[in-house]
């Protein structure tokens, strides 16, 4: 009587995880790439192309650049860090967490994007946004967290430049990273948001709304840098090199990422 219920419970739980042990350990060989969430769709596509071409695979962890920087300092086992802003890489490099200073892999842009059916019209100068805001017709407007997400920082700079940052405060909703901001902006619960150009171009997101590029001199450039971390292995190195190859560059350009001339 004793043995049966408790014994059975233990047996069942053991089965649940022993069965999986093999599958998981095979996966564990693949290095983990921490990538800023504006890369969500572009880098997934590049990782798939990398695997098809070389037979090697990487695991992707997407999130906010600021959070990743914090996690790397606490010892997260990432092998490549693809940041949305190079300042984070420079700091990590200065503190000795990276192999070198890394490479610039893209320039990011921000867009104003509104969901289909929104009363707001996206225009790069944010005129209609300012107009509707003044009239009290904006209920919710989404950006990424301006404290630790680079796209949030740039969104704030652009809104400050346009002179509507303070007026926008009561209606502002903040995503933990730019993907979440996109989710907020386009789920129909907000009038729009300031998002990454790369997300607006993604097939999963593009059809959900319309967008306009915000002038790139309204904010500090989004110089996106990647770096190999100290315990990067050969597969991570191969993926890092692959990022600069024409096949990967072509995918990046399709998502609106450019490289500055001469760098």
């Amino acid at each position, binding site marked *: 009587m004793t043995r049966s219920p408790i014994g059975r419970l233990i047996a069942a739980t053991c089965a649940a*995880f022993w069965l999986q042990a093999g599958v998981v350990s095979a996966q564990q060989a693949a290095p983990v790439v921490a990538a800023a969430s504006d890369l*969500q769709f572009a880098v997934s596509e590049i990782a798939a192309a990398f695997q098809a071409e070389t037979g090697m695979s990487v695991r992707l962890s*997407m999130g906010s650049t600021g959070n990743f920087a914090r996690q790397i300092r*606490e010892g997260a086992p990432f092998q490549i860090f693809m940041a949305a802003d190079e300042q984070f890489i420079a700091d990590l490099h200065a503190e000795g967490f990276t192999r070198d200073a890394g490479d610039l892999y893209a320039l990011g842009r921000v867009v104003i994007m509104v969901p289909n059916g929104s009363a707001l019209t996206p225009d790069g100068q944010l005129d209609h946004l300012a107009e509707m805001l003044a009239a009290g017709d904006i209920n919710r407007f989404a950006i990424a967290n301006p404290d630790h997400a680079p796209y949030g920082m740039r969104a704030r700079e652009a809104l400050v430049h346009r002179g509507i940052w303070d007026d926008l405060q009561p209606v502002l909703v903040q995503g933990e990273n730019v993907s979440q901001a996109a*989710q907020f902006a386009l789920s129909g619960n907000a009038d729009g948001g300031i998002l990454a150009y790369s997300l607006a171009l993604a097939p999963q997101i593009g059809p959900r709304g319309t967008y306009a590029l915000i002038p790139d001199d309204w904010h500090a450039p989004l110089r996106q840098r990647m770096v190999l971390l100290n315990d990067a292995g050969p597969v991570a190195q191969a993926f890092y090199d692959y990022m600069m190859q024409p096949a990967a560059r072509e995918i990046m350009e399709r998502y609106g990422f450019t490289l500055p001339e001469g760098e």
Partner: protein
Amino acid sequence: MDWSALFLSLRLAGWTVVILLPVSILMGRFLAHNRFRGKGVLEALIILPLVLPPTVLGFYLLVAFGRSSPIGQIWQDIFGQQLVFSFQGLVVASVIFNLPFAIQPAQRGFEGVAPEVREAAACCGLSPLRSLWKVELPLAWPGLMTAMVLTFAHTLGEFGIVLMVGGAIPGETKTIAISIYDSVQGFDDRGAAMMSAVLVAISLFAIAVTYALSARVGRRLS
């Protein structure tokens, strides 16, 4: 549908249960049968994770287990790998977070064992260990089973701590709850809906089991 995340969550829940089962038997029995100074404080400490925001625990664990902390360094020296952002780290976090879910029902289970029954067992010459195995566990097992089912289900649903100390590494720390969060952010509504449905089904099943068991205990006590 992210199967590897589901299996990872099941594995995490399994380990948490395996570790917490003996803990809940020892602690639950101890708290049920003993009165001592400071018992209230000890019980409050065990209940604490139930009311603390997961982010508070997550922050403390990140600081306590991180690379710069003594615990993190000792772990690194012994096992040669980091505690945070690893599966082992999640197991440790999950064990701490589930203490109230494991110990409370177990304690209630042992409290349901009448003192006369234990005395009778002792009078019959059963050693404490045999008394535990032959008499107390059979009587307390619905409480223990409830504890383990709740722990299992609760681990599957844990989100805040995993987000903070996990790092969302596929196959290692990206649990199903994190995977749902990522799917929503990636506009993969179908994936999110499927995984959510699976979690709802598992949780419903767990609650049904728990209720059935408590009904049984109730009948026995009355």
